């Protein structure tokens, strides 16, 4: 126990005040006149005893009140460490991230955790937590050794990326809901790449004592060399394997802590090695290997790039991806009679995109009466504001069922009150060229799929188009828009705006499908968008977004989400069940989840087979986060800083932390609040007793 404000203890002098009042100050009794004492007799002893008893009670209450007030101001505190080890909650955290698969790391961590549990006092409560992408609490705080042991033994290594930031966040949440001090034992390989960008994210609350149990040497020894397939660039769809322009796979082989070496890289398609290359990987560097062409059969092919005979961390020696070979999908472009140029520009851009596997079919708006839009990957309405009603209805049904439409509102839209399919009214038409000027793009939502940059994630760039599409979205700022219609954006997502705030690109979800509205034309009359390279990138991204091919194949990262349906299932919405088959061939979704789930987290590495709500199938290759391949541990000084034991070795053995370091780390728990409550009770009691005494005196007077 200690005092945070010991100077207030000087107030103990005030305790002399009640002593003076009750003991030193003579009690004065006022004599009361009476007619005659002839009938009275003396009675001294009884009265004196009575008075002393009452005074002592009041005296004690006043002393207690003053003492409690002084103590409260002195702010006493207790250190919880004094409660003993059994009063602490023991958290056993085992890292089961992907890197723990290397060597015997995971087995060592488990063994160490079991030893710790065996050494813990029987009365101490403990909790087992597995720590991968996020902390996974496996038990409640219990004393049952059997339950804790079985929970510990049930932990399996995962393919997730470990994040100490997420661990810190989870432990902080546990600490907030727990009153007792926490002793956290972390069994991990202490990967440097698992650290968050901000060290403060992994700092633990003061009441948590962190004891680190690294399963690898963190100082004085270089990490084991490790080669890995860092990234794979491959087409998600391949219409023609002989098209050398698209039929190629490019893989980046990276080495962490490795000497310069020659590695053999193989391309495995559907379980068969189809090609082998030797590549010279520089020391601690990267090398690119390319396979061309790739011969895949129709349908989905499960492909893998594998490094042969690489190192001790075999789990990251391969990268998987899926390629779908199919005939080019057809795209319908409907244009008005006054707009002959849009088809030219849009068609060229679609053909120029590296990933393009579409065939554009162009017809006039007046010829669409008997066209069935469901045969097309997506539909483009270029300034085709006036449509046959039967085709417009077909389009609406097409969108509701999961189809997508791109609407470009050219000059014809100014004469109509409503945009077809999109369903919103035209508020105004801005003709910027009328004033001899133009409008530029002022705001872009780069998170939108059709506007995303192709180089946003190198590790999954095999599903990106690369090449011509790899233009950044900032290219939009150079565009000049001479004409744009203003549409009510109330029910839409505004992807881009002009400088004057006019929505330029809007996305509206209707049923299962989306309608993308460009508030200007696709020709070079209303804007100069078709004349800029960004147009090719936009068309490529938009085509893959609208056709949905971007999500049908390719590869993902473990713990990423795949969107299974665009809207929540409702009783009136007759959407199909979704289906997911994990790499082990199991169906992780229950029937009710299959009817309602919107997204699914890919927690395992391997191939997932997915059926979306619109009935389309996909195969996804899921790879672990490649940051897990960098096995370099956190520097010793950083670990010491984290555990708060910079002056002593953090390489704690598999036993609870010593009490001394725990006491220094544990917080002081102030108890002034309880003392103030006691003081309040003493004050009330003093008032009652004192008022009773004074009341008697008044009556006697």
């Amino acid at each position, binding site marked *: 126990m200690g005092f945070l404000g010991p100077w207030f203890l000087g107030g103990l002098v005030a305790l002399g005040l009640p002593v003076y009042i009750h003991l030193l100050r003579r009690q004065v009794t006022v*004599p*009361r006149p009476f*007619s005659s004492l002839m*009938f009275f007799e003396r*009675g001294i002893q009884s009265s*004196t005893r009575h*008075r002393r008893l009452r005074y002592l009670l009041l005296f004690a209450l006043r002393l207690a009140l003053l003492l409690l007030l002084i103590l409260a101001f002195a702010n006493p505190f207790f250190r919880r460490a004094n409660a003993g080890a059994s009063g602490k909650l023991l958290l056993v955290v085992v890292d089961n991230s992907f890197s723990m698969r290397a060597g015997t790391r995971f087995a060592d961590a488990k063994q160490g955790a079991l030893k710790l549990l065996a050494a813990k006092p029987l009365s101490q409560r403990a909790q087992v937590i597995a720590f991968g992408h996020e902390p996974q609490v496996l038990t409640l705080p219990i004393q049952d050794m059997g339950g804790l042991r079985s929970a510990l033994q049930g932990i399996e290594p995962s393919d997730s990326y470990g994040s100490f930031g997420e661990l810190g966040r989870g432990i902080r949440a546990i600490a907030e809901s727990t009153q007792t001090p926490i002793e956290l034992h972390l069994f991990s390989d202490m990967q440097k790449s698992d650290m968050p960008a901000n060290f403060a994210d992994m700092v633990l609350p003061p009441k948590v004592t962190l004891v680190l149990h690294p399963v690898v040497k963190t100082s004085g020894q270089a990490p084991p060399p490790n080669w890995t397939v860092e990234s794979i660039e491959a087409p998600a769809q391949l219409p023609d394997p002989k098209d050398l322009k698209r039929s190629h796979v490019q893989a980046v082989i990276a080495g962490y802590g490795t000497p310069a070496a020659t590695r053999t890289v193989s391309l495995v398609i559907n379980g068969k090695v189809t090609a082998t290359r030797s590549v010279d990987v520089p020391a601690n560097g990267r090398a690119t290997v390319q396979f061309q062409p790739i011969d895949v059969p129709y349908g989905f092919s499960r492909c893998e790039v594998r490094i042969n005979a690489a190192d001790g961390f075999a789990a990251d020696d391969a990268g998987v991806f899926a390629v779908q070979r199919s005939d080019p999908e057809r795209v319908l472009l409907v244009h008005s009679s006054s707009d002959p140029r849009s088809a030219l520009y849009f068609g060229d851009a679609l053909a120029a995109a590296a990933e393009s596997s579409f065939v554009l079919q162009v017809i006039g708006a007046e010829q669409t009466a008997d066209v069935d839009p469901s045969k097309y990957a997506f539909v483009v309405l270029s300034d085709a504001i006036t449509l046959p009603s039967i085709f417009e209805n077909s389009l609406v049904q097409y969108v509701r069922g999961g189809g997508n439409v791109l609407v470009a509102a050219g000059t014809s839209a100014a004469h109509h009150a409503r945009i077809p399919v999109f369903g919103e009214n035209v508020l105004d038409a801005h003709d910027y060229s009328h004033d001899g000027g133009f409008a530029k793009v002022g705001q872009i939502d780069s998170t939108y799929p059709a506007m995303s940059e192709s180089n946003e994630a190198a590790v999954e760039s095999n599903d990106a188009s690369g090449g011509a599409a790899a233009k950044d979205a900032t290219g939009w700022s150079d565009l000049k828009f001479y004409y744009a219609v203003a549409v009510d954006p109330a029910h839409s997502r505004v992807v881009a705006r002009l400088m004057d705030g006019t929505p330029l690109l809007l996305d509206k979800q209707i049923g299962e499908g989306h309608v993308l509205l460009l508030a200007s034309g696709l020709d070079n009359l209303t804007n100069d968008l078709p004349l800029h390279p960004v147009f090719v990138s936009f068309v490529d991204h938009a085509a893959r977004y609208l056709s949905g091919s971007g999500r049908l194949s390719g590869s993902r990262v473990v713990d990423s989400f795949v969107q299974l349906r665009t809207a929540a299932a409702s009783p009136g919405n007759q959407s199909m069940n979704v289906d997911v088959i994990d790499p082990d061939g199991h169906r992780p979704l229950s029937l009710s989840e299959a009817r309602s789930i919107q997204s699914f987290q890919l927690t395992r590495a391997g191939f997932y087979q997915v059926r979306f709500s619109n009935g389309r199938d996909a195969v996804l290759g899921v790879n672990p986060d490649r940051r897990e391949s960098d096995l370099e541990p956190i520097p010793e000084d950083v670990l010491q800083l984290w555990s708060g034991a910079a002056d002593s070795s953090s390489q704690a053995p598999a036993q609870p932390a010593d009490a001394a370091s725990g006491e220094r780390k544990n917080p002081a728990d102030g108890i002034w609040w309880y003392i103030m409550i006691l003081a309040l009770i003493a004050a009330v009691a003093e008032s009652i007793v004192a008022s009773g005494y004074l009341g008697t005196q008044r009556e006697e007077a």
Partner: protein
Amino acid sequence: MMQRFLDPAVLAGISSLDLLAKTVVDGFVAGLHRSPDFGFSQEFAEYRAYTPGDDLRHIDWNLFARTERMYLKRYRGETNSQLTILLDASNSMNFSSATDGSVQPSKMDYARFTAASLFYLAIHNQRDAAGLIVFDDEVRNYIAPSTRQGQLHRLLAGLEQAEPRARTDFSKPLLHFQRLLQRRGIVIIISDFYEDPESIVKTIEPLRFHGNEVVLFHVLDPKEVRPEFRGPAILVDLETDQRLEVIPEYTRNDYRRKVDAHIEQLGDRARASGMDYHLLVTDQPLDETLREYLSIRKGGK
């Protein structure tokens, strides 16, 4: 409604004894009209034939005019009584249990009210001679009984000047009483009688032997009869300055028993000696004392 003016707490607010006595007696007499027992104005008695030597002023000339015979009209004669009040002005009469905010009169005030009311009733209503003797351990003031003009004011002034002091001693002023009370009448002694009942009665008995109607008005404060102490207290005797520490247990039990015995013994002893005894507690109305006086007056007629 007038009865409320007999309440001592109300009377304590009246500073003038004259007004106080008038208020009390008028209120009391107004209350008497309901009673047929009291009526003692001059009454016709009989006619008697005139005999030489009779006072011609008593001849009923109206009857002579009708009958031509002279008759004397005779009335029932009235005798004027003499009221003498012996007022104890010792220090113990100064006791009052009044606390802050209450208007309970002291025993001396109550005695003054009583005496003033009796004087007013005697002089103003009954045409009696009235006198006052104020005493403690000796006679401090004497106003001879008289029916002269201004007698009431003299008596009231005597009451006003009667401030309590010294201690009670009946034996010493008794000789003066006997010397001063030559004529028989009504003697009212107003005191708290803090002495042995036997000695009190023995001292006062000679007045009775002289043919006086003696009445003892024993004035006590309610807190003297039933004192209430919640805690131990130090009491000071008003007459002797003696200090005594007392406890509530004794006051609640033994003291009350002793006081009750004292009152009972004094009353019994007084009545045995042919004297009337009345206990006046200072929170009681004054009509009891007035009624007592009138009853004596009627009985002695």
